[in-house]
């Protein structure tokens, strides 16, 4: 349970990064959400054996992190946390796909290994982009941007409530779990049975809280409509930001820049 609480603490830290005041932070959230979507689309739409075309895409996270002054190690740690899942997804590729695609001297590299590496790189890029988005925008602003870009309000409100109460819920479950641990004296306690009743309790408590929150909303004149009070402008700098990056991404997607660079260098030095 400690690890979950740490993760939530990390989430809070990530959110605090969004209070920064760099040029990237000041951009309208919609621009950043849009460009992250374009980036993710361009990255994942690559062929499954592509590795070289993916590498130039690293320019986006690098530039964003340096411009927005985010702590690179913190973001890297967050990405590494996710790596075991990615490895689990791709680990069987080298087993099933043993056709040799690449020959480096005596070493033959099979298609499986290449597609595995491709999955890994893609995940690092997309997950990194998502973390950077939250780090420079803040989760709330991302939700509001999604809503203003056309996502139904119900979903946006759901996400906002999820984010607001995840902290309360983890605190509650952390307390319950600690109480159980302390009374099980370092042994297994009552085993899985005690966990199931704990989860049940948490559910009931959440239910009651939801009722109280609803009451609090009604008491303040809630009629089913959420009014956005924040005004922001999608101005010239936002348009420039979106155009420049999306042009670059589409170019990187259509042209194999690594290969171009390679042939340029080998052409220069034959």
């Amino acid at each position: 349970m400690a690890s979950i609480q740490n993760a939530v603490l990390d989430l809070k830290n990530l959110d605090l990064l969004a209070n920064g005041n760099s040029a990237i932070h000041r951009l309208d959230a919609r621009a950043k959400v849009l460009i992250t979507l374009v980036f993710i689309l361009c990255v994942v739409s690559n062929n499954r054996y592509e590795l070289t075309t993916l590498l130039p895409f690293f320019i986006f996270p690098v530039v964003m992190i340096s411009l927005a002054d985010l702590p690179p190690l913190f973001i890297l740690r967050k990405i590494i946390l996710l790596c075991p899942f990615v490895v689990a997804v791709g680990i069987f590729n080298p087993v099933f796909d043993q056709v040799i695609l690449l020959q480096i001297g005596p070493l033959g590299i099979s298609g499986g290994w290449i597609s595995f590496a491709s999955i890994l790189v893609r995940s690092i890029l997309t997950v990194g982009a998502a973390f950077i988005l939250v780090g420079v925008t803040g989760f709330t602003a991302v939700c509001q941007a999604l809503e203003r870009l056309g996502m139904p309000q119900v979903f946006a409100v759901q996400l906002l409530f999820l984010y607001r109460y995840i902290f309360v819920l983890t605190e509650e479950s952390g307390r319950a779990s600690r109480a159980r641990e302390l009374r099980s004296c370092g042994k297994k306690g009552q085993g899985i049975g005690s966990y199931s009743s704990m989860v049940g309790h948490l559910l009931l408590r959440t239910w009651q809280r939801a009722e109280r929150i609803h009451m609090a909303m009604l008491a303040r004149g809630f009629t089913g409509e959420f009014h956005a009070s924040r005004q922001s402008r999608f101005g010239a700098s936002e348009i420039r930001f979106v155009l420049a990056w999306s042009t670059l991404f589409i170019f990187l997607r259509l042209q194999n820049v690594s290969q171009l660079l390679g042939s340029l260098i080998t052409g220069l030095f034959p």
Partner: protein
Amino acid sequence: MSHHIVEVKNLRHVYPDGTAALKDVSFIITHGESVGIIGANGAGKSTLLQHLNGCLEPSSGAIHIGHTPLSKGTLPDIRRTIGMVFQDPDDQLFMPTVFDDVAFGPLNLGYTPADVEQRVTDVLELVGAGHLRDKPPYHLSGGEKKRVAIATVLSMSPDILVMDEPTNGLDPFARRQLMKLLRDFKHTRIFTSHDLDMVLELCERVIVLHEGEVWADGPALEIFNNDKLLAECRLEKPFSMQGCPVCRKQKQDIFSESQE
């Protein structure tokens, strides 16, 4: 006609499981009064509060707020008149930032954005939380949360303030701050609390609930001096009326020595 009168007539509430939480409760609270509702756990305080802004429907009896009977049709108006501060600020602060939370009520009432902005700034200043305006609620301390929760209600300019255990879980300093804030309000105020010292300081009048009925209703000092009544209702005198524990101990010691 005043909006600030709360009249509860023969209110009875039976929960679906058959528990009669309120048996027969009647009282009238007039304009500008500050009233403490006290009672043991399970006396019916929270149930009563939930009736005051229509979160529960009475099994029988009626509630009038400023001569308007509380019913489905009048609910929106009555909820604007009564500002309800919940016991757990985490239930009340559900929006992403303090500003959004305080603006939630006024926006629902249909004020213009400029007006909302002004109101939010004013009430946050009033409760001393101006610097918290852009913070998310989960980054606030307990005392800050409480003050912001009060601001969320004040921003709707209610005539009557209803608060459930306002000083619960606050450190002594935050409790003092909050009590000073509450003392300066000109609204009709209704508190429920187990913090009897707070009740003694803030309320001229006290209503004692016991097992779903009003057992006493009168000036605070009179009620807190009635030892028999307090004992019956599982209450005791506020600490400030109990005398100094150190002196009492010394007196007892001297008494027992002189007896020996």
